[in-house]
C-alpha cells in the first residue's frame, strides 16, 4: 500500500493554509488529492513567503509546496457552468471534498453540501472557516489564522504583562484546525465503511484553537479567574525551569531541571553558588527562584547554545536550544528521520520542504512530491477522473473554462 489511505479520493477546493494543510495530511497518508485552483484567482498562499531564494513569484512560494505536496492540480473557473459541471463530475469520483471559501460562496455557486449530497448521497464534505458556517458572526468573517488565534483566546495569552499581547507566531489556528478536520474526516470514513453514510463537517478555526488551550478555559470556568499573559516561560510551580541566554545574538536555551534528579545533575555541572545547601529542596528553590535563575543565566551567558544543550543532555538534564530556522535546517534528529526533503521544480530548481508528520512501519508513506504548478494535471484529471476525451478538453480550454 502507498500509505494507509491508498485508494481514498479527495477533492480539495480549499486555499491558503488550513484546508491545504488538511489535504496534505490526506495526501501524505496515501490518498489521491486533486487541488482546484485558477490562474485568474490563484491560491493566495502563492503570494506568501518564504520564496525560493527570496524571489517572489506565483510558482516560487515554498510555503505553497510545503502545504500542497503530493497533490495533483486542476486549474478551472468554477463560476462557469461548465466548470461547475467538472466539479460535479469530480464529486462523483471523490470520497471527500474539502473547501475553505468564505461562508455563503459555495451556496451561491450551487456547490454547497445540499447540492453535492443530491449528486452523491454518501459524500463527506468539510467546510472550514474562521468562525464556522453558522452563528451571528459567521457571515462576513473571512481571513487567516491570526484572526482565529485572536478569537480562540490564544493570542492574549502570549506576551509580557507590561506590554500589549505579542500574539501567536503566524496564523496559528491554520495549523491547529487541521488536527480536528483530519480526524473528523477519518472518523467519517470509518463510519461510511460500516453504514454507508456520508456527512457534512463544519470546523471553525477559532473553535479548534480553543481546544489546544482548553486547560485555560477550564481555569476560567471552574475557578472564575481569567488567565492572562505572563511573559516568563515556565510554570510558577517549577524551578529552575525557563529560557536562559547564551553566547551570540538572540541565542537561548531552555533548561527544565525542577525535579530533584535533574536538579542535582544541573548543579553539579554549573557548580558555583548552586552547590549551596539552601537550594537542596524544591521549596527553597521556589523561594530563591531569582537567585537560581541569575546563577544559571550567568553560567549560560558566555556559552555556546548548542554545545550547552549537548553537554546537559549527556549528563541527564532536560535542555534544548530555542531552535531558529537555521537550527532546524541542521538539526540531527530531523535529518536522521529524513523530515526535510528535497523537491525539484522546473522553474526554481531545488528547494526543501517537510515530510509527513508520522511514520507507519510496514506501510511506507508515499514519496514527498512537490505541490502542483497551476493547472499542471488539468488534462490528466479531466481525462482520467472525469472521463472526458481530448475534444471535450480542447473545447473547455478554448471556451476559457480552464484558466
Amino acid at each position, binding site marked *: 500500500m502507498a500509505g494507509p489511505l491508498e485508494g481514498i479520493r479527495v477533492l480539495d477546493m480549499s486555499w491558503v493554509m488550513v484546508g491545504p494543510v488538511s489535504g496534505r495530511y490526506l495526501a501524505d497518508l496515501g490518498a489521491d488529492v486533486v487541488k482546484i485552483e485558477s490562474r485568474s484567482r490563484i491560491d493566495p498562499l502563492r503570494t506568501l513567503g518564504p520564496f525560493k531564494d527570496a524571489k517572489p513569484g506565483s510558482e516560487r512560494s515554498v510555503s505553497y509546496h510545503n502545504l500542497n505536496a503530493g497533490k495533483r492540480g486542476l486549474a478551472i473557473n468554477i463560476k462557469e457552468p461548465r466548470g461547475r459541471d467538472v466539479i460535479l463530475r469530480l464529486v462523483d469520483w471523490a470520497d471527500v471534498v474539502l473547501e475553505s471559501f468564505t461562508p455563503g460562496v459555495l451556496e451561491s455557486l450551487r456547490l454547497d453540501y445540499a447540492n453535492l449530497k443530491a449528486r452523491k448521497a454518501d459524500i463527506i464534505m468539510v467546510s472550514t472557516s474562521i468562525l*464556522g458556517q453558522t452563528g451571528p458572526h459567521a457571515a462576513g*468573517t473571512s481571513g487567516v489564522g491570526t484572526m482565529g488565534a485572536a478569537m480562540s483566546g490564544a493570542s492574549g495569552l502570549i506576551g509580557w504583562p507590561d506590554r500589549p499581547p505579542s500574539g501567536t507566531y503566524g496564523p496559528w489556528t491554520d495549523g491547529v484546525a487541521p488536527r480536528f478536520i483530519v480526524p473528523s474526516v477519518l472518523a467519517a470514513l*470509518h463510519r461510511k465503511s460500516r453504514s454507508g453514510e456520508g456527512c457534512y463537517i463544519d470546523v471553525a478555526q477559532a*473553535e479548534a484553537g480553543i481546544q489546544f488551550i482548553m486547560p485555560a478555559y477550564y481555569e476560567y470556568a471552574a475557578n472564575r479567574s481569567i488567565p*492572562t499573559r505572563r511573559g516568563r516561560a515556565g510554570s510558577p510551580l517549577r524551578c529552575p525551569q525557563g529560557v536562559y541566554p547564551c553566547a551570540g545574538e538572540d541565542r537561548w536555551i531552555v533548561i527544565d531541571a525542577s525535579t530533584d534528579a535533574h536538579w542535582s545533575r544541573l548543579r553539579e555541572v554549573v557548580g558555583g553558588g548552586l552547590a549551596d545547601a539552601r537550594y537542596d529542596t524544591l521549596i527553597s528553590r521556589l523561594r530563591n527562584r531569582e537567585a537560581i535563575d541569575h546563577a544559571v543565566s550567568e553560567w549560560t551567558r558566555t556559552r555556546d547554545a548548542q554545545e550547552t544543550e549537548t553537554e546537559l543532555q549527556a549528563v541527564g538534564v*532536560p535542555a534544548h536550544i530555542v531552535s531558529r530556522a537555521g537550527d532546524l535546517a541542521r538539526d540531527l534528529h530531523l535529518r536522521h528521520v529524513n523530515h526535510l526533503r528535497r523537491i525539484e521544480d522546473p522553474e526554481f530548481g531545488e528547494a526543501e520542504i517537510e515530510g509527513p508528520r508520522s511514520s507507519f512501519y510496514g506501510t511506507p508513506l508515499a514519496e514527498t512530491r512537490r505541490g502542483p504548478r497551476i493547472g499542471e494535471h488539468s488534462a490528466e484529471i479531466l481525462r482520467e477522473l472525469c472521463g472526458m476525451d481530448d475534444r471535450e478538453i480542447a473545447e473547455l480550454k478554448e471556451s476559457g473554462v480552464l484558466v
Partner: protein
Amino acid sequence: MLHDIRVLEISAPETMMAGRILADFGAEVVVVEPPGGAPGRRMEPFLADVPGVERSLTWHALNRNKRAITLDLNAADGRELITTLLRNFDAIIEGAAPGDGAPLDGIDIPGTVVRCTISPFAQSGPKSDYLATDLIVMASSGAPSMTGDSDRPPIFYSVPQSIMEAGAEAAITVLAGIVARDRGAGGQRAEVSARIAAMMSSMSMPTVIGSGNHEPKRAETTIAGARVPAIFECADGYMLVTVPAFGPAFGRMTQRLAKWAADEGHMPREIADVNWSTFPRDLANKTSTPDQLRALVEGVTLLCRGKTKSELGTAARKLGLLAAPVMDMRDISESPQYRERGLWNSVPITHDGCDFDVPVRFAQFSNFSIETRRPAPTLSQHTAEILRDYAAISPTELQALFVHGVI
C-alpha cells in the same frame, strides 16, 4: 461515529488529547494508569487552586468521555492482564519515555491492533535519548524563536502545547490506521514524534534555510523602516489588525481598513487613496513611501483606541477586514457566536454535581454531535468492570490484585 472502536490509552500527558478526540467521536477509550495515578492528574491548574488527583483541570479537560483502570505494567499480572485486554481492543496509544522504550514493548500485541507510539524525538537517532518536557519539545519546534519581543527572551505558551500537538497528531495516525484496516489491511504500527508534531506551530520555518533564504529574526514587523504592530490597544482591551496585508487577495482588505480610518477622521484621505494592493511594488519603485504606511498605522492606532472590541469586531465583519478582537476566556464564554453555534456542552468536573459549560464541539456534523457522555474518570473508577468484562477477573481475584498493589 467510532462506537464500534475500542482504544486502550496508556496514559501519558501526550496521549490525553489523542484519546479524547477518539472518545469524543464515540470510541470506547479506556485509560490505563499506574496504581498511583497518571502523570496527567498532577498537571496544573487545579480546581479552586487546591491540588489533588481528582482536581487537575488539565486532566478533566483531556479525559472526558473515557473510562479508567489502574494496572501496574511492571508486574507480571499487569502485563498478563494487558495482553488479555488487548484481544478486545482495536487500537493502542502510548507514550515512550526516552531511553525506556514504549510501555508495551515486549508485550504480545495481536496482529489486528493499530498501535501508535508517541516519543519526543523519535525512538531512534541522535536525540532519541534526550530528556524532554513540554518546554524542551516546544523549544525544538522553532516557533518560540520567533515569538515575543526582540529585546526580551522568546515567549512560550503558558498552556503546554506539545501534548496537544502530539496528541492530535496521534489521533490522526490511529484513525488512518483504522481506515486502512477497514479497507483490508491488517493492524498497523505507527510512530509520532512530539517535536515534529509541534513544528506545525512554526509554519514554514523549517523550509526557510533549505530554500535559499536568510535566517529570519524575532522582531516586530517593520516595512522600509516603518513599524507595523500586529495588535492594537482599544478602549477595553486589544484588537488584532493585520495592516501589512497586500497583494491581490489581501490588499482589498487593507484598502477598506484605510478608507474606514479616513472616514472616521483619523488620517488624511490621501492615505486611504493609496493603492494598498500594489504597495510593496510601488514602494520598491519609489512611487509610494514608508511615510504612507506610517500614516496608516497611526490612523489605525487612533481608530482602535476610541472603540471597544465589540465595536471593532462588528465593523471588521461588516467591512471585511483582516481584524479580530483579542478575546479572553470570559469573552469566549459570553460570545453570542460561540453560544448560538452550539459550541458548548455541560461537563461535570468534580463528580459532586458541579457542572460547567465548556467548548466541547470542535467540529459540527450533519448527522453526529459531540457530547459529554461522561466526566473524566476518577482514579481506578472502572477497574472492576473492565477487568471483569474483558479479562474475566472474579471479585476475589480483583481483591487479590488490589492487595498486591497491581491495581
